């Protein structure tokens, strides 16, 4: 069980959170012409790093805010959590 520090509420149990995927994925710009490969990459392809991973988490049972988490996929250690408008 992880203990995750919500930037708004402080340390809480993982039970209160929901995982939201890779935080580095960016949707292609709306006005831009998008190739099939770019769209495929955005929809389906994800990195699977061994080590530090930037993630989105949602404090679904608490303040209901999304935030970013830098976590090790090897040890599950959480190095840093920041608000959505901040950089990891």
């Amino acid at each position: 069980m992880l203990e995750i520090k919500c930037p708004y509420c402080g340390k809480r149990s993982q039970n209160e959170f929901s995982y939201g995927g890779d935080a580095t994925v960016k949707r292609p710009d709306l006005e831009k012409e998008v190739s099939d490969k770019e769209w495929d990459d955005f929809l389906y392809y994800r990195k699977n790093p061994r080590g530090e991973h930037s993630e989105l988490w949602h404090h679904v049972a608490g303040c209901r805010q999304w935030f970013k988490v830098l976590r090790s996929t090897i040890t599950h250690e959480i190095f840093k959590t920041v608000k959505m408008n901040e950089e990891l």
Partner: protein
Amino acid sequence: MTAISPLQSIHKKSLFGDHHKKNEDDLLHIKEIKNLYIIQIVFYKNSQIKLDNIKIQNLEIPLHNLQVSSNANTRILWNGPNTWLVVSKKEDIMQSIKETCDDENFAVTDISHSRAIIQIKGPQAKEVLKKGSPLNFNDFNKNTCAGSVFHGINIVIDCIDDQSNTLLSTDSFNLLTLRSFGESLYHHITDASLEFGYLGT
């Protein structure tokens, strides 16, 4: 406000669990809190006004997590950044909120009928909550609130009292959940209370 309460058909007023030869004061007291006004206030992201000066029935809006502003009739719970729950007995609470929270800067929604509220009071109230919620209750004192889970059900826990004396501390909590989860939460809470004995009031 009178309405059909969420727990009307299941809440029973009697003694349950391990209550034999115990003083009533040592038992847990569980009851449904009815006919409260619950108003959600959300401050718009792009609004420029300062929140320091906003008061609802002379209560300041709490600006940090876990905080509650309260008087005898009304409690304002911090429910997230720029989000609050106002829980009140006052019939004119909506009017009071609208006087200070204007439409241009706040979304004000009456959610009174969409929540069930269970009150649990007694020396072992925290022990019961610890069985289903991962929240750290060590620093959870009077006028503290938090959103959390109880056996997977999303709840808001509001500590309304923590009378401490040398022998026992009697804590009182209001547990708010979505109306449709009310019965399930009630069964979880009462099941967890059986070992201490409880009085449905």
